[in-house]
C-alpha cells in the first residue's frame, strides 16, 4: 500500500485504539489512589522475612526470582543472537582503525574506567540494601570497560571484550543463577528456595541467597553487555561483510 493509505488507515485504527485505552483507563482508580494487595503484603513482610531493606531487590531475587532467571536468559540469549548475527562471513581485515586519544585524555579516561568499574561493583554489592543491583551495576562495569576503547584503542580493549574469553563468564552468570536454583532442589527444597538464613537487617550479610543471585546476575549482565558493545564496535571497525 502507498504511504498515504498506510498513514490514513493507521490513524483511523489508532483513534479506535485510543478510544479503547480511554475506556480502560476510566476504570482505573485515580492516580495515586491505587492499592494492591500483593504490594501491601510484600511491603510488610519482605524486610522481616528477608532482612534486605530494598523490597524491590527482595522481589527480584527472591519472591519473583524465577522471573529474573528468565530475564537473565533473555539477556544471555540476545547477546548470543547478536554474536551470531554479526559473525564475520568473510575474513576480517587486520587493519586497526582504533581511535587514538591524547595523553591527557587517556589519563582522565583511565581514571574514569576505574571509576565506572568501581561504581558498578558498588551498585551490585549494595543492590539489595539501597537502590541498585546486578543489572544496573553490571551495565556500569561494562561501561567502564568500554571506556578503554575510547581512551586507548580497540586492540587494548579487544582482549577484554573478546567473545572467546567472555563466553564462559557470561554462561557462568546465567547458568549460575539456574544452578543456585537447582542446588535447592538437591537439598530437598523447592527450586530457587532461599537456602541460607536471612542475616541481619540492612547489612551485606542479609537476604540469604539473594547476594549470590545478585552477583550471578551482575556477572551475567556485565559480561553480556561487554560482549554486546564489543560486537558492535567490531562490526563498525571490521564489518562482517566487505561493502560493495
Amino acid at each position: 500500500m502507498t504511504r498515504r493509505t498506510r498513514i490514513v488507515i493507521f490513524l483511523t485504527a489508532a483513534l479506535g485504539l485510543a478510544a479503547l485505552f480511554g475506556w480502560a483507563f476510566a476504570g482505573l482508580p485515580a492516580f495515586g489512589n491505587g492499592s494492591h494487595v500483593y504490594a501491601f503484603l510484600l511491603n510488610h513482610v519482605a524486610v522481616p522475612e528477608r532482612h534486605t531493606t530494598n523490597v524491590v531487590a527482595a522481589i527480584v531475587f527472591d519472591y519473583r526470582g524465577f522471573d529474573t532467571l528468565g530475564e537473565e536468559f533473555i539477556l544471555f540469549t540476545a547477546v548470543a543472537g547478536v554474536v551470531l548475527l554479526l559473525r564475520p562471513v568473510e575474513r576480517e581485515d587486520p587493519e586497526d582503525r582504533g581511535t587514538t586519544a591524547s595523553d591527557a585524555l587517556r589519563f582522565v579516561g583511565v581514571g574514569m574506567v576505574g571509576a565506572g568499574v568501581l561504581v558498578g561493583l558498588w551498585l551490585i554489592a549494595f543492590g539489595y540494601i539501597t537502590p541498585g543491583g546486578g543489572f544496573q551495576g553490571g551495565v556500569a562495569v561494562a561501561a567502564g570497560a568500554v571506556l578503554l576503547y575510547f581512551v586507548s584503542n580497540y586492540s587494548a580493549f579487544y582482549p577484554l571484550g573478546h567473545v572467546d574469553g567472555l563466553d564462559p563468564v557470561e554462561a557462568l552468570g546465567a547458568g549460575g543463577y539456574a544452578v543456585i536454583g537447582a542446588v535447592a532442589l538437591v537439598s530437598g527444597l523447592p527450586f530457587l528456595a532461599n537456602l541460607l538464613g536471612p542475616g541481619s537487617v540492612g547489612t551485606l550479610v542479609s537476604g540469604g541467597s539473594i547476594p549470590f543471585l545478585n552477583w550471578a546476575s551482575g556477572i551475567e549482565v556485565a559480561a553480556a553487555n561487554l560482549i554486546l558493545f564489543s560486537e558492535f564496535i567490531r562490526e563498525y571497525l571490521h564489518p562482517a561483510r566487505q561493502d560493495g
Partner: protein
Amino acid sequence: MSVVATTAPLQAVAYVLVAAGAAGVVLSRDPLRQIVVSGIYGYVLVLLFMVLQAPDVALSMLVVSTVAYPLVVLVAIARVRNRREDDE
C-alpha cells in the same frame, strides 16, 4: 527511603515532558539527531521515575540510556553513514 521530595506539580511536569519527549524521538527522522533527543527522553524518564519513588528503575534507565542505547545506536549510525559517504 524517600529519594526526592515529590509534589504533584513536579509529577505533572515530568509527565508532560515525557509526552513531549516521546513525540520528539519519533518525529526526529534523522538518526543522529534522534539519538540525541532519545538521550534527553531517557533522562526525562529517569526524572519521572525518581518522582514516582522508583529509584531502582530510575537507576536502570539511567545506565541504559547513558551507555547501552547510545553505544549500540551510534555504532549502527556510524557504520551506515561511513559507507554511504564512501560510496558518494
